[in-house]
């Protein structure tokens, strides 16, 4: 029985052709020693039975995957009488790379130019006659899915079986041809499983399988080592010759309709990523996002969660009292849990809306443009362009933001990116801004939030510049980035993205924040006998001890101080603690009123600056330790943002006071 192998790129219609040829006469197994599926079948023609092997779909015949190895091993060692190379006519240039490699191997090839109907519908005209002449093998048009051209393919294949394959002589340039010849001579007395020419070529390409075959052939090894010692690398030139060969053939045999190169994406990008308008448009879009967040999240949805938490708190309190629960339990549940965790949860609608709009920006492809615009600024201030990726990730959470700095190969670039990442305002800090905005800037929420985020970015750039000029000097390398085409946002993807982020926020409120609140509640009622949440409690004493430090910044109260202290455990804890210490069940509007009474507008601004820039949370510091493998840098990460934040907060307050605010 004669053997036919089917080989082709993935999605070239190879398996469809196999099914058409073999019908139900097929069986599936595995290639020996690998997990790649082996499909074999047979068909009868004029009384003779032919075996057909469907080889794994592959783009080339290197040794870089099991599929490639299986395909090339069968072609060389399996001795098929004919190799049908299934070629996608709509993507001829890409498919012919594999064809070229088949011809290099000296296989008896018949090209099935498949999907010709699709090629014609795309107005791609291919001259099979010219293609056949150029390749030196039969080329037969097929549409396997519609069983067209199958008989012609079978006839052509059987005809080719009885003929010697035409040997195509490739030239890879004088130098490489000479090297192939030299190695071939060294191989001629050896017993090899592959043709000498092809083995020599593959050795020059650095093919690992071939190198292992010649491992014990001293002369060949010595010759290859001498090439290595001379720093000669032919692989690129060999691959290049194949591409040039294919390119030449397609230019000769294929006529394509002229393509419209200026797409809608190009036209939009000319404005959105332009040097002149890119940054202002980015700023405007972010401002609108923040503004819409407040309009939709606060004005439209805001009240429902607050009311629900209030009703829940009253219901639980009533129930606990009715069942005779001890005072401490009522205090813990109502003042600690509802007051603390509830103060964080009340901002869920705003956070939900913000993430909804950001998800839309991401899904349309605009966030990639934002990254591109930021990249320009990064370079302008002397930072590595890739730093912006970690910064954007840091807007979600600084932990993955710092992890994202791993993409920077240079240690100096990476250290700068790590050290400035916490200035990117993470999602956990949002409730702090939102509660202060509700208290002092209810009519300009979007603008204030925009300024806070912009200040974070500005400070990151400034510190980055400073570090690159002092601690970490060095050149940054060039890279380019791909911008995906714009597309309409998919509602499912946007809602899923928003939901995942909101759910993470809620989960954290119920776990980490709850744990922090529980600990702080204990500190707020001990020692026994003191007035809960008073200055005499442990929490109050800790706050009083720290408070003088913040007096020059205008918020030297024990409550504000202790909330900042708790924020080092987790940033959401700042609002949770404020909710707890300002009279227990103080979520929502009650907390806002309490804050309005305890801060002035100026001290509120100063507090916002402090919370934006001061020591990142414990998880971030731990990540810095892990990523830098240095306690020194972890300590630096904890201290320098605090010093910077405190200095700026004091500056804001003192200058503001002098100006009469």
């Amino acid at each position: 029985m004669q053997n036919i192998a089917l080989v082709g790129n993935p999605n070239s219609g190879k398996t469809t052709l196999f099914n058409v040829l073999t019908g139900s006469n097929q069986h599936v197994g595995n290639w020996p020693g690998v997990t790649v599926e082996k499909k074999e079948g047979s068909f009868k023609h004029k009384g003779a039975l032919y075996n057909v092997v469907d080889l794994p779909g592959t783009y080339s015949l290197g040794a870089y995957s099991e599929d490639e190895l299986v395909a090339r091993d069968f072609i060389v060692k399996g001795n098929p009488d004919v190799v049908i190379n299934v070629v996608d006519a709509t993507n001829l240039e890409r498919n012919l790379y594999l064809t070229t490699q088949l011809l290099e191997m000296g296989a008896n090839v018949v090209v099935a130019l498949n999907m010709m109907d699709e090629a014609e519908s795309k107005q791609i005209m291919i001259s099979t006659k010219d293609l056949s002449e150029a390749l030196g093998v039969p080329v037969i048009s097929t549409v396997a899915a519609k069983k067209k051209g199958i008989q012609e393919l079978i006839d052509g294949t059987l005809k080719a079986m009885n003929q010697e394959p035409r040997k195509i002589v490739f030239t890879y340039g004088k130098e490489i041809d000479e090297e192939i010849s030299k190695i071939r001579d060294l191989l001629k007395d050896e017993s090899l499983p592959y043709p000498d020419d092809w083995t020599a070529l593959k050795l020059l390409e650095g093919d690992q399988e071939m190198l292992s075959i010649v491992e014990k052939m001293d002369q060949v090894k010595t010759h290859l080592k001498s090439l290595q010692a001379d720093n000669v690398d032919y692989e690129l030139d060999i691959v290049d010759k194949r591409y040039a060969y294919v390119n030449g053939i397609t230019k000769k045999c294929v006529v394509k309709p002229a393509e419209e190169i200026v797409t809608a994406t190009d036209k939009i990008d000319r404005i959105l990523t332009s040097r002149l308008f890119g940054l202002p448009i980015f700023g405007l879009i972010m401002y609108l996002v923040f503004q819409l967040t407040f309009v939709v999240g606060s004005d439209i949805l805001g009240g429902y969660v607050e009311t629900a938490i209030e009703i829940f708190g009253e219901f639980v309190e009533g129930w606990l009292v009715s069942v005779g629960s001890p005072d401490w339990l009522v205090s813990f549940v109502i003042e600690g849990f509802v007051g603390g965790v509830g103060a964080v949860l009340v901002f869920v609608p705003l956070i939900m809306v913000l993430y909804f709009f950001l998800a839309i920006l991401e899904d349309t492809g605009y966030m990639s443009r934002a990254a591109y615009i930021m990249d320009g600024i990064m370079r302008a201030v002397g930072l590595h362009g890739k730093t912006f990726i970690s910064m954007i990730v840091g807007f979600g959470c600084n932990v993955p933001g710092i992890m994202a700095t791993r993409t920077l190969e240079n240690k100096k670039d990476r250290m700068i990116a790590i050290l400035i990442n916490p200035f990117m305002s993470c999602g956990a800090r949002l409730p702090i801004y939102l509660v202060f905005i509700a208290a002092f800037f209810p009519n300009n929420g979007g603008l204030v939030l925009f300024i806070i985020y912009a200040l974070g970015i500005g400070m990151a750039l400034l510190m980055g510049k400073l570090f690159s000029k002092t601690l970490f000097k060095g050149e940054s390398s060039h890279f380019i980035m791909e911008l995906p085409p714009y597309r309409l946002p998919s509602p499912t993807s946007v809602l899923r993205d928003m939901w995942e982020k909101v759910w993470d926020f809620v989960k954290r409120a119920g776990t980490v924040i709850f744990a922090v609140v529980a600990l702080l509640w204990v500190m707020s009622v001990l020692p026994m006998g003191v007035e809960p949440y008073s200055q005499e409690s442990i929490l109050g004493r800790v706050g009083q001890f720290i408070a003088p430090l913040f007096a020059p910044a205008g918020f030297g109260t024990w409550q504000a101080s202790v909330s900042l202290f708790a924020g080092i455990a987790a940033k959401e804890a700042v609002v949770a603690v404020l909710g707890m210490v300002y009279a227990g069940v103080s979520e929502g509007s009650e907390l806002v009123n309490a804050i309005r009474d305890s801060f002035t507008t100026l001290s509120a601004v100063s507090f916002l600056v402090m919370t934006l820039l001061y020591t990142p949370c414990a998880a971030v510091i731990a990540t810095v330790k892990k990523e830098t493998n240095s306690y020194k840098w972890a300590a630096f990460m904890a201290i320098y943002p605090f010093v910077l934040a405190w200095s700026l907060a004091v500056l804001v307050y003192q200058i503001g006071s002098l100006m009469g605010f």
Partner: protein
Amino acid sequence: MLKEVLKEIKEANVYSRQQIAKNLEVSEDVLEDMIKTLVRMGYLDEDLGSPTCETKCSGCSVSSCNTIPLKMLSITEKGERKINS
């Protein structure tokens, strides 16, 4: 042709597959294959930018951090040598 791809990338500001493919008169798929080959051979460095979040980082508050689908390419020292050769 591969050396030309390296040169195009060196001179570009943004990786536009469409534009580079047009300049080199090859299809976008072929260009993509060429870039993969150059990455495999060590002439180019490919970077997908942000972490994938396939595994949750210790201490991370979000399981769905911003994963902007950005592909970045930079020319390695080996690539620079090839361009200048």
